[in-house]
């Protein structure tokens, strides 16, 4: 870990970075923001850890806990909402048995999240399954994707 963090630190120094860019690099590398990484940077840069956590909890891109190996993001922008994205989300939560107030299955196979709009409104409703954008998503198509992922797990 030390070595990876060192690289992020160098990138920060070379590219006039700031707390946001450091956290973006950490999130990209680890998939979430581990507490140890924040403590490490806090000591190296002599910036209180609270400032890191302040920024990390402000932006939706940062996660303080590990996420699932498969990430399904359902867009809930206006166009998607009008075309039924809420039903997609509800069905996913039931199908994957995700506990109330959580977004990840206990075995960390799946994370289901909402995004405010990815700007592909012309092909609403839209879902992003592991970084791949799928348009005109129906309950059927969604379940097919889920079954595919369950098999490969």
């Amino acid at each position: 870990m030390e070595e990876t963090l060192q690289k992020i630190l160098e990138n920060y120094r070379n590219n006039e970075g700031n707390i946001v860019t450091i956290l973006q690099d950490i999130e990209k590398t680890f998939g979430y923001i581990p507490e140890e990484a924040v403590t490490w940077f806090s000591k190296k840069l002599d910036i209180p850890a609270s400032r890191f956590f302040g920024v990390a909890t402000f932006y939706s891109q940062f996660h303080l806990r590990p996420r699932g190996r498969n990430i399904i993001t359902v867009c809930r922008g206006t166009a998607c909402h009008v075309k039924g994205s809420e039903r997609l989300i509800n069905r996913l939560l039931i199908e994957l048995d995700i506990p109330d107030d959580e977004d990840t299955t206990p075995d960390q196979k799946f994370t289901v999240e909402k995004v405010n709009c990815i700007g592909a409104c012309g092909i609403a409703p839209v879902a992003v399954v592991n970084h791949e954008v799928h348009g005109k998503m129906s309950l059927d198509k969604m379940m097919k994707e889920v079954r595919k992922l369950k098999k490969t797990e």
Partner: protein
Amino acid sequence: MDKEIVIKICTGTGGVASGSEKVLSAFQNAIAATGTEATFNERCTAKKVGCRGFCSKDVLVDIIINGEKTTYKHVKADMVPRIFDEHIVKGNPVAEWTVGDDYHNFHQKQQKVVLSHCGEIDPEDIDAYIAVGGYEAARKAILSMSPEEIVDVVKKSNLRGRGGAGFPTGLKWELGLRIRSDVKYVICNGDEGDPGAFMDRSVMEGDPHSVIEGMIICAKATGSHKGYIYVRAEYPLAVKRLQMAIDTCHDRGFLGNNIFGSDFDFDLRIFQGAGAFVCGEATALMRSIEGKRGMPSPKMWRSAEKGLWDKPTVLNNVETFANVPRIILNGSTWYRNLGTERSGGTKVFSVTGKVKNTGLVEVPLGVPLRHIIYEIGGGIEGDKAFKAIQTGGPSGGCIPAEHLDIEVDYESLAQVGSIMGSGGMVVLDETSCMVNTAKFFLEFTQEESCGKCTPCRIGTKRMLEILDRITRGKGREGDIELLEELARYIRAASLCGLGMTAPNPVLSTLRYFRHEYEAHIREKRCPAAVCRDLITYTIREEICKGCGACKKVCPADAIRGTRKTPHKIDQSLCVKCGTCFDACKFLSIMKA
């Protein structure tokens, strides 16, 4: 025979999602495999272009043979061999796959200025942009115009900020020019956060150089040497294409030191947002670039006086910058004459929701709303009844049928209780519930409120609670009045635009659709049959054939019945997801 063949494939986010990369490689493979170039002595290229704004027909492919264009819709990779063989090799277009009149209508009735290159040129190729006149305006501005001259042209063009508020761009630049400072910044706001708006994404992905060129001109006009493009985290493709564009500009000497061989320096960086709607607000966006929590600050100064790192900063929206090169080249009179007396030029709208042709629509300011929905949008999907059009995203409002003939500009939309905003237009039909729509937007603003000021943080929460109980059938007498009272306070006392406009969706739906609120509260009924707690699904026994399709798909195992006998829904188990409603081919399931 010497033929020039160009194949253009849409590779915007919408196109990629529909499989355009596979289509592109299928064409490239076909070109390589058939050795087209050798046999026919043709120059044949397959290239990617940006979004054409008609994503519901993706993947769209243009095949241009000696200048004659044929467009195919819904192209999949397995269709490519036939198109290639019949059309490109033998010269007969595959008629059954080509686009119809609706496609041509959709484009012909628009007037494209900002979008004129999107879908036509390869956004990853700077020479394609230069071939259509790219960087001529920047060269002219840098080499032969004074800052005052540039400001004057922009002022006379009547260009107003396309991010929503509509502040005159020329005036903003003039302020930036007048302030004396050793360091000044130019920022492009690409944090297109309004759900339902995607014109900025399209421009950044489909014509990134026009944004950069607009920024170079602004830098010269205001005497700035450093700029930032703030792009939201949800647009990875836009970041990639802009970065490529910036890099090639450095290679060509269009960015960096002594640009275009002059003594003027200007450099640009991309800053990626981290997911916060409020960062679309100028002061919050600047805090975000500084690496802080993106919270707005009270407007004691204009950004042009004190902005990023307390230095003078000129901040404009993506679409605003993309307009600038055209204005410099074609002149302010041309641009001003396109629009209305008070706002010049065209505006791009993203028309979505329950309309036949969803996509990006660019029209001169001042065209009637009806023209956008019916002439270009093709009318309502499934020929249902039009109910309202929601404009301006979560800060805007719903406009009912009686105002369809208003001429769209900043002032007229405000008059009917909505706003222009970033240009999102969501069409709602008879199956949309207005209370639910208002709740949707308030849920959004409540979640995205940064929490700095109390009226927005707590006020939106209280309003949402009231709306929530109304949609659950637990609304009380007096709730409507309470909503209106809260809305007044939030509007008057919030710190930034997010809070000040947050009550708009509720106020405008109350203005035009008060009866729907009353039906929810007094009769515990959702007239559009949308609100989950107020509807029940039942199977009409006289129609049910007992096919079992509904039983198979029900995620809650709430449907009972044996084959070929009418089925029944156990209401105590039903989660009201509506899956059975979609699955029934005989329309025997009732929603009420």
